[in-house]
């Protein structure tokens, strides 16, 4: 009996790896907030992958492996020490309850024609995404933008699957909360959000205070 393990050639490895360049770049851009730095991060990620291609087990998930290299590089090299370690205190740290938001309010937050957030709130969503703590942002981006499974995201971020689920949940809730508040202040939604149930005891998110706190101490 002859057993032969299939191992892609170097060229095939390179082609497959570079196929993830856009996805890596999308995530790197959100992490670095700088196009040139993001490109450097992607390049270093792929060069490390090439250098260590023999350590990749064929048949396993290359995308997940590449994102793991990227996130490790980001944390160990690119992230400015301390500045990105946003931790929340005050109202934002509490688990966000599934407070009462009417179907009408939720409908008003969406674009009626496209399956996306209302274009009036798009800029707010972008800002809210940037303000998410880095760990939450990464989890939300991998799951929502890159369609990772929880298992893949857990492998890419080197964290347990339960932690991925919790970070995605909390990240999304924070985004929703900001959108509801902004929708209300822009007059897009009516003032019924967070009006009943558990949400009663929850102080409303104050985006301005949130941003001031976030950027305090940033040079």
């Amino acid at each position: 009996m002859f057993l032969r393990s299939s191992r892609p050639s170097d060229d095939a490895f390179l082609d497959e790896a570079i196929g993830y360049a856009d996805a890596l770049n999308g995530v790197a851009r959100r992490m670095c907030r700088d196009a040139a730095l993001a490109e450097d991060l992607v390049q270093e990620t792929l060069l490390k992958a090439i250098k260590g291609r023999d350590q990749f087990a064929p048949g396993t998930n290359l995308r997940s492996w590449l994102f793991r290299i990227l996130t490790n590089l980001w944390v160990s090299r690119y992230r400015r020490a301390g500045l990105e370690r946003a931790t929340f205190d005050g109202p934002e740290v509490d688990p966000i309850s599934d407070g009462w938001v009417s179907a009408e309010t939720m409908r008003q937050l969406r674009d009626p024609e496209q399956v996306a957030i209302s274009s009036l709130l798009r800029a707010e969503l972008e800002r809210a995404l940037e303000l998410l703590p880095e760990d939450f942002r990464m989890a939300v981006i991998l799951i929502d933008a890159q369609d990772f499974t929880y298992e893949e995201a857990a492998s890419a971020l080197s964290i347990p699957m339960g932690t991925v689920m919790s970070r995605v949940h909390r990240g999304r809730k924070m985004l929703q909360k900001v959108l509801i508040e902004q929708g209300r202040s822009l007059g897009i939604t009516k003032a019924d959000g967070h009006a009943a149930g558990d949400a009663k005891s929850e102080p409303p998110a104050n985006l301005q205070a949130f941003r001031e706190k976030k950027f305090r101490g940033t040079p």
Partner: protein
Amino acid sequence: MTPSSPGCRSFVRVVESFLDGELEPSALIEGERHVASCAHCRERVALGRALKASVRELTCAPMGNEARSRLRKSMEAEMARTPSPRAAGTSSPRTRSAVVGLSFGLVAAIAAAFLVVPHLIPGLFAGPFPGLLAREAPREALAVSGDDDDALRELVAEHVHPLPMDGIDIQTVQGLEQYIGIPLRKHFPPSRARLVGARIVPVQKERAAIVQYELVPEGGGAGAPRRISVLVFDPRRIHLPSVLMRGDSQEIHQVRTTRTQGMPVAVMEDNGIGYALSGDVNEAQAVELVRYVASP
């Protein structure tokens, strides 16, 4: 149906998994049935999908053709600079193509021999550290019932699925000290273990290094070399479960052991540097090896 109805309350608990396609088929069908009958949850799902779609849109950043072409050239150059062992006709121990012309019966017989013979002749397969296989864990190595820990999980994950190294020789490994703030100068002698490389790893939002070695088989014997991985960290910044790292001076050279994801891990602290070792070894060997690499 109202948002406070039992059906809605049950659905809210799984709505994220529903959106992410992570529900079991039966739960998915149940969820879809609920969504079809509940306007409120239908809107909840629609908002969740809209949020996902918008995040996807916001994070879409395709590389330009020029950048992509630059990237490809760098990758090709890197590939030429670091030829793959398999391309050169040699095979790495973990990844080589296996062409085996042995009958199943013969394979089974060899496997059985490996299982039985070491018990009959204990000294024969002692490996690179004679006596270790036959020896129990030293008495002073305290076994700790293993609660998994992020740092140890990272060590085991790196050992099982290693990522590319940041440094592959003594000099470049030493150059990584600037990232972790502690010395990386203790290594096994080449006669015992070959340095494979080291890389910086983020642990508990701090940086540590994982150094990997291949144990040299005793007498230059053949066979796939066994690997070990050592997490070198600053115990003031990276905390293992307290039961593994007790800082009192009487226990300064105490080796403690645990198991993480089925792998033995031996931990020791020396002069303010923490060492956690795991790999293709048993617990007694892990203890012996960590003591070797950590001791002055």
